[in-house]
């Protein structure tokens, strides 16, 4: 028992959808509801419920760094909120052994009217640090945030980058036994994100227990010693990181089989990111070619099936699309499972976060058999190239090698702007 930091037993959390849609009641509604139910004898309205978390049990050992992964609505944040004691579970129990620091957001409690210095103390206290502890770490925090010159300026005058850096710096200096972190690594610019990841590395190596949520599979593989996979509120697996990540990224296969069996139509089973040699990749460099492995199934023989993919930017903008018909590649017109591979040449996309959308359709009727948007999310890192030396300064999504020339302007007698009286 003593080597366990967090024990979760049959934890469940129910939200009623009514609460989400109508965020609060009014006395009138309650009174009216009371009158209705008392005098009219109509059956009480069936409120729609969602189990955000459903019978989840797991143990987290002391010193483990656990990545909590799963798609949107899988229950990751709900689990963190319960373990952080922000909300109570509907059923089940959890036991936490040790001092917990939880970081569900950076800059919680920052007040815009207060100065950087004041906010460091306020935020530190909110995160559970003692005043002496904050005072001791004050200089480190300021140095980490790189805001020394503005430390006595109200944070409402800070740029958003400075604000986030200061907020993260306070949080990064929290030293609890057990650290619970929600997706906070996705803040700030790319350079600062690297710094944050470095800080997380330090925390992970210091022997503390860490439970963190991220969609960044590279970060999970780099930092975590084990992973927990949630799907629609249920725990579907836990253990070594790589298999869990693979299962998450290929998480559609089970559903894909089921849909294929039910509809008899072609379905995507799984997809994952690959590097130039075809091996599963975590976070390729944008200077290298990379691609996607796509497994799909034709439950029955069918001709004219096409597979296509689209790369979307983090905000959903379509960057480009491509399909098997681009290269007149035909999907075999027979029942079975097939692997498609598509490669994207290096030096085309800028570093950043992207989503992959996949589609299987019928070329003659245009019917869509399966559309997965996004099928997976991935990130590219800047590779060594003179073009990217300025790092994140580059805007847009693509790198187009443009031709530039420069010559002295040819003198135009009437239109010259230089040397006119």
């Amino acid at each position, binding site marked *: 028992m003593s080597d366990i930091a967090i024990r979760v037993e049959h934890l469940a959390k129910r939200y009623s959808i009514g609460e989400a849609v109508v965020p609060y009641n009014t006395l009138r509604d309650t009174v009216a509801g009371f009158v209705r139910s008392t005098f009219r004898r109509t059956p009480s309205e069936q409120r729609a419920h969602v189990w955000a978390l459903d019978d989840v049990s797991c143990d987290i050992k002391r010193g483990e760094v656990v990545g909590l992964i799963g798609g949107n609505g899988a229950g990751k944040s709900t689990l963190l*909120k319960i373990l952080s004691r922000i*909300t109570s579970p509907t059923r089940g129990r959890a036991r*936490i*052994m040790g001092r*917990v620091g939880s970081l*569900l957001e950076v800059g919680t*409690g920052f007040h815009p*009217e207060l100065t950087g210095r004041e906010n460091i103390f*306020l935020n530190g206290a909110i*995160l559970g640090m003692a005043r002496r502890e904050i005072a001791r770490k004050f200089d480190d925090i300021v140095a980490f945030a790189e805001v020394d010159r503005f430390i006595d300026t109200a944070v409402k005058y800070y740029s958003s980058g400075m604000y986030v850096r200061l907020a993260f710096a306070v949080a990064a200096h929290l030293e609890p036994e057990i650290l619970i972190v929600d997706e906070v690594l996705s803040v700030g610019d790319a350079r600062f994100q690297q710094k944050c990841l470095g800080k997380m590395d330090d925390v992970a190596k210091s022997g503390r227990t860490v439970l963190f949520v991220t969609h960044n599979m590279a970060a999970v593989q780099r930092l975590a010693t084990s992973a927990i996979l949630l799907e629609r509120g249920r725990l579907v697996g836990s253990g070594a990181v790589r298999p869990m990540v693979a299962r998450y990224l290929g998480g559609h296969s089970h559903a894909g089989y089921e849909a294929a069996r039910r509809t008899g139509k072609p379905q995507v089973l799984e997809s994952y990111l690959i590097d130039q040699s075809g091996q599963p990749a975590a976070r390729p460099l944008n200077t290298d070619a990379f691609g996607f492995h796509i497994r799909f199934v034709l439950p029955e023989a069918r001709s004219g099936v096409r597979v296509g993919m689209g790369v979307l930017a983090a905000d959903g903008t379509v960057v480009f699309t491509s399909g098997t018909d681009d290269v007149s590649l035909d999907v075999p017109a027979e029942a079975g499972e097939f692997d498609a591979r598509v490669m994207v040449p290096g030096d085309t996309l800028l570093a950043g976060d992207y989503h992959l959308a996949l589609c299987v359709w019928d070329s003659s009727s245009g019917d869509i058999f399966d559309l997965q948007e996004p099928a997976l999310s991935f990130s590219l890192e800047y590779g060594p190239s003179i073009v990217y030396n300025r790092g994140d300064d580059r805007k847009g999504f693509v790198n187009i090698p443009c031709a530039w020339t420069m010559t002295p302007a040819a003198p135009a007698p009437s239109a010259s702007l230089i040397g006119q009286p």
Partner: protein
Amino acid sequence: MSADARAAAADLVVDIEAQGDGLRRLNLREVWVYRELLYFLAWRDVKVRYKQTVLGAAWAILQPVMTMGIFALFLGKLARVPSDGLPYPLFSFAGLVPWTYFATAVTGGSLSIVGSQQLISKVYFPRLLIPLAAAVTPLVDFAISMGTLMVLLWWYHVVPGAAIVWVPLLVLLALATAFAVSLWLSTLTVTYRDVRHIVPFFMQFWMFATPVAYPASLVPAQWRVLYGLNPMAGVVEGFRWALVGGPAPGPIILASTAVVAVLLVTGLVFFRRAEGTFADLI
């Protein structure tokens, strides 16, 4: 981490369960552990309150002084409300000082939970600190208006007697009342946003039921006990007696204390029962 810190951490076991009953969760020791945060929350509110105001903390003097001016003109001069033989401006100001504190604390306290939405949905700390900070913060303004009251006493050549030693206890009673009422109102506001519209009326009504602008001696003797059920009646009457003179509040203060004790205990239980769902409802 030092060895003793490690030992302390190893001792710390937190059990998270589906909502338990209110009394068992009344973990006041934890509030003590988080006392520094209480200080910071109050400190933040004090710092922020008068930022970007031209007059700043002078508002803490101006507000009760202006109210006193209005009372003195309309109630003292025109309506000739009796004042237990004291100069009416002094009489009403001595009542306004504790009342203004109370009204500010309750108004702020009732909105405190809803106003702390950001914190509540992202960080854990004993939620009791929020209404507690809201009740403590206006004590700063209270201290400033106490200074004003001292000036007024000097102006009217009134020297407080030995009864002044009761002032801290009366302030504590006012704080307890404000905190207890805030516990109820802030919790109700989370579920029923109507409460925020009711509070101003409620406070106005409450002021008329409190001897701020008139002496408690105006209330017929057979109604005094009922009147004493208003805890602020005891506080205001006692406060005036302790500083300015006039009749001692007598058994009213005992009734007030008893009511506050009941309000406080029930408020704590009510608040604790509800706090687990604050993050879901806000």
